[in-house]
């Protein structure tokens, strides 16, 4: 139904104008911290340490970003960006693969211990990594996985959200398809590859968006296990750029790094908005 016809409910004229004003004000307030960070990343340190800092961008954009990316403070930000990218993609891809496989097994097979297994993975939904940090750290240290990508990735894919999502989705795939595959003598894995995976494309993509953000934005876990600056991720590395003493932090570099840290997730969220919203709604069901 076209909403334009409901003149009685929709505001017109001054009301509509006011609505836009409120909306724009809201957006400006929400955006203000990002704008300030951007401005700070384009001026010199001297501009910042004599407050108030300017509100419009300066001419140091290229210098500050070049300096951050290739020199940084403890380690070039380029290195941290790469680490974050590997971690985020590793978590997203790893979690999607193991959950696709186990959801397929739960839905399409009858095997002993299926229910037990189902309830065990249900339990993993309940305990975020923040709660079990000390023993998980000991396990990872015991495997010699401190300061490694596998140490960054594996403990964070040990949760069953994605398995549940795929299970829900597989249950909606018509039984006739599996029946036909069985009559044709197709083996289960063939059915998996030719029917189940292609049908799950949208769900996989939506989940990828959510998991990528989740992985990229991790803070506590990388903080614990990457003691070597070369392995820092960008989100946890920013805090490491602050001096420990009473010195002034080098704000232009830190703010350029903050902007760089938000660009990949913002691109993913804004660029894949529809998938993102779908993934968000799905993963909260």
């Amino acid at each position, binding site marked *: 139904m076209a909403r334009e016809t409901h003149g009685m409910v929709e505001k017109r004229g001054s009301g509509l104008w006011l609505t836009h004003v409120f909306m724009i004000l809201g957006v400006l307030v929400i955006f203000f911290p990002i704008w300030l960070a951007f401005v700070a990343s384009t001026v010199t340190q001297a501009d910042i340490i004599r407050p108030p800092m300017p509100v419009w961008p300066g001419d140091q954009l290229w210098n500050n970003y070049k300096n951050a990316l290739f020199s940084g403070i403890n380690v070039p930000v380029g290195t941290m960006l790469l680490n974050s990218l590997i971690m985020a993609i590793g978590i997203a891809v790893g979690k999607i693969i193991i959950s696709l496989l*186990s959801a397929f097994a739960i839905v*399409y097979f009858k095997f002993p211990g299926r229910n037990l297994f189902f309830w065990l993975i249900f339990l*993993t939904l309940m305990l975020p990594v923040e709660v079990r940090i000390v023993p998980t750290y000991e396990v990872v240290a015991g495997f010699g996985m401190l300061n490694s990508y596998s140490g960054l990735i594996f403990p964070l894919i040990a949760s069953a959200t994605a398995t549940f999502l795929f299970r829900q989705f597989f249950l909606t795939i018509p039984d006739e398809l*599996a029946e036909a595959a069985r009559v044709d003598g197709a083996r289960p894995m063939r059915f998996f590859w030719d029917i189940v995976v292609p049908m799950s494309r949208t769900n996989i993509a939506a989940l990828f968006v959510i998991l990528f953000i989740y992985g990229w934005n991790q803070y506590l876990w990388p903080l614990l296990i990457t003691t070597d600056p070369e392995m820092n991720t960008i989100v946890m590395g920013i805090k490491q750029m602050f001096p420990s003493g009473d010195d002034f932090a080098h704000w232009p570099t*830190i703010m350029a790094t903050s902007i760089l*840290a*938000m660009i990949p997730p913002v691109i993913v*969220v804004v660029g894949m908005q529809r998938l993102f919203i779908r993934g968000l709604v799905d993963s909260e069901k």
Partner: protein
Amino acid sequence: MEKRVKFKGWLLPALLIAPQVVISAVFFFYPAGQAIWQSLFIPDPFGLSMQYVGLGNFEFLLSDRFYRASFVTTAVFSILVTLCSMIPALFLAVIADRLIKGSGVYRTLLIWPYAVAPAVAGVLWLFMFNTRVGVVSWYLGQLGYDWNHVLNGGEAMGLVVVASAWGRISYNFLFFFAALQAVPKSVIEAAAIDGAHFWRRFWTIVLPLLSPTTFFLLVVNIVYSFFETFGVIHTITAGGPQQTTTILVYKVYSDGFVSQDLGSSSAQSVILLVVVGLLTVLQFKFIEKRVHY
């Protein structure tokens, strides 16, 4: 719901679930079990041996003034974060819902902060309120207000609350907006014909229809403030001043990794485990209802 068609065999499904079983066992069940086990012991000062103390760690914790304070801090913090992120989000969603055109553009702009990691949000807000260079603190100073969250516990709490709520506004906005769009227009029109003006319609019709979404967001935001705000606290206040912003998750970290008090930290993990369990039950109870409403 069950599939009628099942494939046969046990080896293939066993192989299919193996990766998840192994990863959950090694990185989830074993550490969780360790947390429970370690909570019953106190290591000696050199970390060479462990002494069994039963529930001693828990007794000690519950009588510890700082731990009890941390519970109160967490409660205050999560209530404030939830309110500060839900009320502006609802307000923006109601306005956006009134627009026929352009709401998509605003939505695109408003979801930005969701993508910003809590730790990065912490750095952005720290920058604005920094006692020496912060723009906001400088203008407050011009107005005669001496902002110093490094010394003032109330200001520190205010700052971590706002920094934590900021990104959540986007998240809540998306859910409220979707729920508002789903409110049947005929109901609103009927009320409008009866002469109910906008705010009256909002309070008596729209808000009650939003209650499933509101309740869902309440639980989700509390879970968020409990477990995902570590980055904000660590970057802005590191739990200070005088532990006024030490929420439970931060205390697990600072006792376990900074003070190396493993027994206490494990006991805290176990207590948190119970808290998460309760919140999860609450969430699932509600989801069951929501599916059938």
